[in-house]
């Protein structure tokens, strides 16, 4: 018997060999890619995310090998494509948001605008990132709430990451009376800032008369602090500045309005 005419379960032997080669190649390529991706991505993302990505890649290789094998075993790929297309449209409509979140999740994992542990503001939700999963991101707010945000919202929304830079600036506006010595006030504020250990020497704090307001001379105070200490410094310094100014009889004025009358007022004093 000619070897080229031999069959196994109705499939020519050469096709069987082709199928075996394709399956083996798919397994080898799939595994190799998985190992390579694990090695490359392990330092950039968590192990859970690496596992998801390597599985997606592995099954993509399996899918393409199946596309090669199906015509060989007599499976009509045209009808499969038509059926698959209809199924994909139905699935697409049904799973639109899931797929959107999944793709956004993959982009978030690669782009890394936020990391686990960062303090962020995602579309108005401020808190510490607890986990970034493939579909959603979880944030623990400073009120102690646990907020799950779909990755599509994270990806499309405005993200402010407070942990990217080593230092952070905050500012106050301190109003003093027109009768107070503004130069003296600037010196007192500078002295208070210099005494606080985490109000950074560099970048230097900026203190200046910013505005001549309706009721007060407004002094702008801009201070840098390490991002880990920023909130404590902000909490402490404003009160310390207020106390130091008052100690030197420089006071924060109440809003004042001067009212002028065209005619003389007859004010009757009652007992």
């Amino acid at each position, binding site marked *: 018997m000619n070897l080229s005419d031999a069959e196994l379960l109705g499939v020519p032997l050469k096709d069987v060999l082709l199928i075996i080669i394709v399956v083996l190649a798919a397994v080898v390529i799939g595994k190799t890619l998985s190992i390579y991706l694990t090695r490359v991505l392990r330092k950039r993302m968590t192990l859970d995310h690496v596992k998801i990505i390597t599985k997606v890649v592995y099954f993509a290789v399996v899918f393409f090998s199946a596309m090669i094998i199906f015509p060989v075993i007599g499976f009509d790929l045209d009808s499969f494509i038509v059926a698959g297309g209809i199924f994909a449209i139905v699935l697409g409509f049904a799973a639109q948001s899931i797929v959107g979140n999944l793709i956004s999740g993959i982009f978030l994992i690669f782009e890394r605008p936020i990391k686990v542990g960062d303090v962020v503001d995602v579309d108005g939700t401020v808190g510490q990132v607890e986990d970034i999963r493939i579909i959603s991101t979880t944030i623990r707010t400073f009120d102690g709430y646990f907020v799950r945000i779909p990755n599509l919202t994270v990806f499309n929304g405005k993200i402010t990451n407070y942990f990217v830079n*080593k*230092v952070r600036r905050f500012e106050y506006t301190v109003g003093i009376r027109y009768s107070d010595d503004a130069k003296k006030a600037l010196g007192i504020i500078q002295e208070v800032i210099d005494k606080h*250990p*985490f109000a950074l*020497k560099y970048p230097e704090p900026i203190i200046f008369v910013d505005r001549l307001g309706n009721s007060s001379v407004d002094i702008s105070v801009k201070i840098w602090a*390490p991002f*880990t*200490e920023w909130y404590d410094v902000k909490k402490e310094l404003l009160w310390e500045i207020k106390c130091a100014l008052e100690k030197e009889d420089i006071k924060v004025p109440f809003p004042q309005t001067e009212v002028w009358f065209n005619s003389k007022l007859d004010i009757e004093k009652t007992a």
Partner: protein
Amino acid sequence: MYGRLEVPFKWTSERNAITIRGFKGGLLYHRTTGAREVRKRIYSSRSELFILPVEPFYCPKMITSNLMIELTRNLVIPPRQVKKIYLKFPVEIGILAFRDNRMKIIDVFTENPPNYALYGDIKEGVVCRYYSSDVHVKPPKGDPKTEGVMEVNVSNSTRAWREVSKLVFEGSIMKVFYSDSRVTTKARASLIDDEKAETRFQDRTWIKGQKRSQKLLTPGSFQKLSTKFTMEGGY
């Protein structure tokens, strides 16, 4: 002033007031710094207590292991020259308990109000413990409770004149030495080009007979792998 403590112990300065006294079975530690108080009850009467100068990275809390010393007057160095200078650095004081070769930090305080500064840009830079010092050609005198004296060999290996306004060090390998009159450390700085310099603390003192203080910071404290600091944002 540094060394083993005899209980009862009392230390009073403008900034701090410390008392250590015994009770049955242990020691009572109490420190007052302004409105802040630290109280500890040490349940071991057999422990040895020491008061030692330590690296300046603990007060008011440990956020960095980098030390920036800004020079009040810039140091100008000719091409291919090595200059030995002396700078002052801040000292913090540790109260440490030892028993069976195991050390416990009871408290760290400072007589020197600490300040911090950023070296480099806000994204890639490092927050440093900040100190300002004159450049001395001879070892200056200083109060060992507040300041130490660092000998620095500054080498300009380039072909141009260089001007140094500050030096930043990696403190995880900083070694502090002490005697009754002085706290010291030793370092070197190499100017590589107009923006870049390398600094490194050395594991020896420049005065014979000084004792080595207990090291509290380790390279693992901030997961620092390098023992030198590369100043890439200018000097």
